[in-house]
């Protein structure tokens, strides 16, 4: 059942999501853009923590770096924001090299704290960048987003204002990122390296004994997720239009919420972040008016899931029903007929 279920439902879901800017309101597009971006961050963090065992609480560093690199590309070097996105991803990946060099000496909780420190150092360092507004931040030049590559095409396609076209374009980019990330994660995890990664997560000592290099695989995942996170950071701040160190390197927005999403959805599963982000969005709609209470409720739910349903909603669902539309496992080949002579 799982095999026929997945190829049908996924493209339909994506198609439905793609139609939102055409039929939905701008407010809905902006809301769902945020949801999609959180999903991109969650997919990256899940890869890092759920599959590579690298529980980072400093991924906001790469959101901020990607966002700042995008702003620098546009403001200082006169590039198109879309090209700036790519620069953001590449700069985030490049800076992930020294970050990995230092934080990979730490394990477990120490690694988590180490990445947090790195993110704060990055926030403080970017506050010193006077050309991009220092501690108070700056805005994208007037019209930079609206003159962006592809906006005119989108306008021709769906009509409406330039601002609406920017919203639609960024929304579609976020959706595309989600789809590409989901497919790439799935392909990676099913590959030789993905198998090695899961072996390392389960037992690094044994993994080394069967020829798997844990450091190489973890470093690869760390760099790739920094790239994905950096691009997402750039995309977020094209839409937001204004950057400041506090917003770009926000622990709460780009890491704490993301961890919540992955944990309630099911860490170490591919559909987990998708389920998690839906729950998160639902709760936000329900409770956003209550301010602090909303965060307290989120925290309590997170704790409850960690205590009573450690596999998260998706993990629990798979365990109960045995149904897994996105299986990562390799089935053993059917036993050949015994050929004893």
């Amino acid at each position, binding site marked *: 059942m799982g095999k026929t279920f997945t190829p049908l439902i996924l493209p339909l879901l994506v198609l439905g999501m793609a139609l939102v800017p055409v039929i939905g309101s701008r407010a809905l597009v902006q809301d769902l853009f945020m949801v999609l971006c959180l999903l991109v961050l969650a997919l990256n963090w899940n890869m890092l923590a759920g599959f590579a065992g690298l529980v980072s609480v400093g991924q906001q560093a790469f959101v901020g770096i990607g966002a700042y690199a995008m702003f620098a590309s546009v403001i200082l070097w006169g590039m198109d924001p879309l090209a700036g996105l790519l620069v953001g991803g590449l700069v985030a990946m490049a800076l992930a090299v020294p970050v990995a060099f230092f934080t990979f000496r730490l394990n477990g909780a120490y690694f988590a704290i180490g990445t947090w420190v790195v993110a704060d150092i990055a926030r403080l360092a970017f506050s010193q960048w006077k050309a991009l507004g220092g501690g108070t931040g700056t805005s994208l030049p007037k019209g930079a987003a609206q003159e962006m590559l592809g906006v005119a095409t989108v306008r021709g396609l769906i009509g409406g204002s330039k601002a609406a076209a920017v919203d639609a374009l960024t929304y579609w980019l976020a959706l595309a990122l989600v789809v590409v990330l989901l497919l790439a994660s799935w392909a990676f995890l099913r590959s030789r390296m993905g198998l090695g990664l899961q072996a390392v997560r*389960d*037992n690094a000592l044994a993994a*080394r004994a069967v020829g798997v290099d844990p450091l190489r695989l973890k470093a690869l995942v760390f760099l790739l997720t920094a790239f994905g996170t950096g691009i997402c950071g750039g995309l977020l701040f094209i839409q937001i239009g204004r950057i400041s160190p506090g917003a770009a390197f926000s622990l709460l927005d780009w890491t704490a919420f993301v961890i919540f999403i992955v944990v309630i959805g099911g860490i170490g599963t591919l559909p987990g972040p998708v389920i998690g982000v839906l729950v998160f969005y639902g709760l936000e709609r329900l409770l956003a008016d209550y301010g602090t209470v909303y965060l307290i409720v989120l925290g309590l739910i997170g704790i409850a899931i960690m205590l009573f349903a450690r596999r998260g909603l998706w993990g629990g669902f798979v365990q109960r029903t045995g149904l897994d539309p996105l299986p990562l496992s390799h089935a053993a080949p059917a036993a050949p007929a015994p050929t004893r002579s």
Partner: protein
Amino acid sequence: MGGAMAILSLQNVSKSFGALKVTQEVSFDLAPGEALGIIGPNGAGKSTLFNLITGNLRPDQGAILLDGRDVTGETPMQRCASGIGRSFQIPQPFDHLSVYENLLVAARFGGRLTAAEAPAHCADILRRTGLAALADRKAGGLPLLNRKRLELARAMATRPRVILLDEIAGGLTEGECVELVATICDIHAQGTAIIWIEHVLHALTSVVSRLMVLNFGRMLMIGAPDAVMAAPEVREIYLGIEA
């Protein structure tokens, strides 16, 4: 020394943890396809010797040669790819992977097999180790005998030329032990060299052609099992029998 002939050769290997000399000037050659047993009291440095051979520990002095090539500076991953496989004393399965996937990782990485070659290789080993029926079961939930079998099967999947077995028969019932010995004999018959640490002596001596006794990190004796077991100093130190 017959270093040119040996598949694995240890030359004056020593290792200390602080003031404690856990391995002292151990030298021996292992011929291709040979089966060597290692015995000695607890704390004699048997597992440390394995960790030196696999590269989990670096010796303070001495050299380890594989096919006459010095591998002393190589990582466990490189040594595995060069043909050293091992099973751990306490089974170390990849809990969340299936039994088959445990072997598949070993075959794809250490065994250097392609995606096309690996499945048949793994299926063959599953059959030979009696794990075929459990292939799609998660390794984390296996009972002891099957964990021990999995240790052996996973080591075999790396296509080793030397396989190191660390107390693989420990904790098994008599019947289970007989089964495991049959599998080890099968591996040996296919030409894989074996170094086997074991307290279950009758299991060990039914396979190995040479026996080494370690005591306080030193090689006390190496030779034919009967001669070694008959030696007074071995009887005294290892078996606690007054000579």
